[in-house]
């Protein structure tokens, strides 16, 4: 449960100008945009990645942390490379 999807803040709207009366942001999710409430992440800014659940940003994605742990995972993968066969296919995404 708790479907929360990562997206990038591409515009900020203060509470005066937003329709909801709350601090909002336009968040881009891989080409789809939605207005998201930013009240719970007052320090979030342009270009930040946030996790959005039911129209609210509930946390920032800690990009350094993500990079660090992903490096560790990649190392695991490189050990496994010794046994690896064919490269798996990339998902067939059409822009």
């Amino acid at each position: 449960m708790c479907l929360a999807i990562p997206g990038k803040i591409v515009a900020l709207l203060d509470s005066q100008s937003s329709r909801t009366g709350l601090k909002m942001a336009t968040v881009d999710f891989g080409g789809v945009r939605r207005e998201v409430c930013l009240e719970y992440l007052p320090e979030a800014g342009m270009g930040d990645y946030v996790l959005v659940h039911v129209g609210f940003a509930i946390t920032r994605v800690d990009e350094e942390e993500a990079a660090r742990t992903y490096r560790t995972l990649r190392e695991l993968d490189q050990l496994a490379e010794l046994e690896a066969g064919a490269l798996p296919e990339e998902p067939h995404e059409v822009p």
Partner: protein
Amino acid sequence: MKYLDEYRDERVSTALLDEIRRTVTRPWTLMEVCGGQTHSIVRYGLDQLLPAEVELVHGPGCPVCVTPLEMIDRAHAIARRAGVIFCSFGDMLRVPGSQGDLFQIKAEGGDVRIVYSPLDCLKLARAHPERPVVFFAVGFETTAPANAMAVWQARAQGLANFSLLVSHVLVPPAIAAILESPSNRVQAFLGPGHVCAVMGWSEYEPLAERYRVPMVITGFEPVDLLEGILMAARQLEQGRATVENQYARAVTREGNVEARKTIGRVFEVCDRAWRGIGVIPRSGYRLRPEFAEYDAERIFDVRSVHAAEPAVCISGQVLQGHKKPHDCPAFGTQCTPQTPLGATMVSAEGACAAYYNCGRHMAPASR
């Protein structure tokens, strides 16, 4: 999509599976708490890829599954009232009450609307000041900040026609209840990643310590789940029992302080009945007395609506991890997504529906 695709990488997943295989020396039973995690496991066929020693049982992390029949009936009673605009997340539309579901009520003339966010309900309330707008506020702690903000804004904007039907549930008391059960087999938990993004993980430390059970706060993508399983397996093999955070890119120990503040301003902890489990003390949220004017149960006077839960399906046992969906004799025969017997079949991510929709009823258990 950034921060999603990388965690669906096949090579990293395979490497993690190999490492899990190298780590486990004997059978272990793990529970993933969140229905979204169950959904992901079944969607990617993850549990079939795990070594036989690792058994995943599915927890009660599906608010659709654990919302008691009585609360569903109260929701339906309100939705049937003339003039009411009844708003709900899509998940709740098909949950059957004692008489039909919200879809049926819609067919009979009820104004039932699917919303993506509770803020959409405020918009509706402003657009239709003469009609009551009611939002079915189910969910775990993850959804509470959004629901709290909706109430807070309703007050700030002086909206007189907006109310919430609250059925929030909390994870840590449910975990404690599972661990207290004499027939509990769960040895480690994959903790709810997005609940903890909001609440932090400090509430899980006393649980890990008291019951000597590893708790790994885990995300939702295949790489997250596999890494979480690996971390839990290592703890089990090493005889450790602490809280660890696999989902570090989203979760910190304190969680989202602003969100928790607003939750505390609007909601207070209360006892809650869980479908298939019963009343767990201090396991839910209700509106604080100062927000009583937004309490739909009070406004529509539905507290007298009671419903007894009949006994056929094993939803309760599935929800607590005692049984798997295919252990149930009704699974796939009497009990299907079309004719659900239990809430676990109705919810898109209840364990049974996840299993059914991914065809488990046709394939014999592979392990």
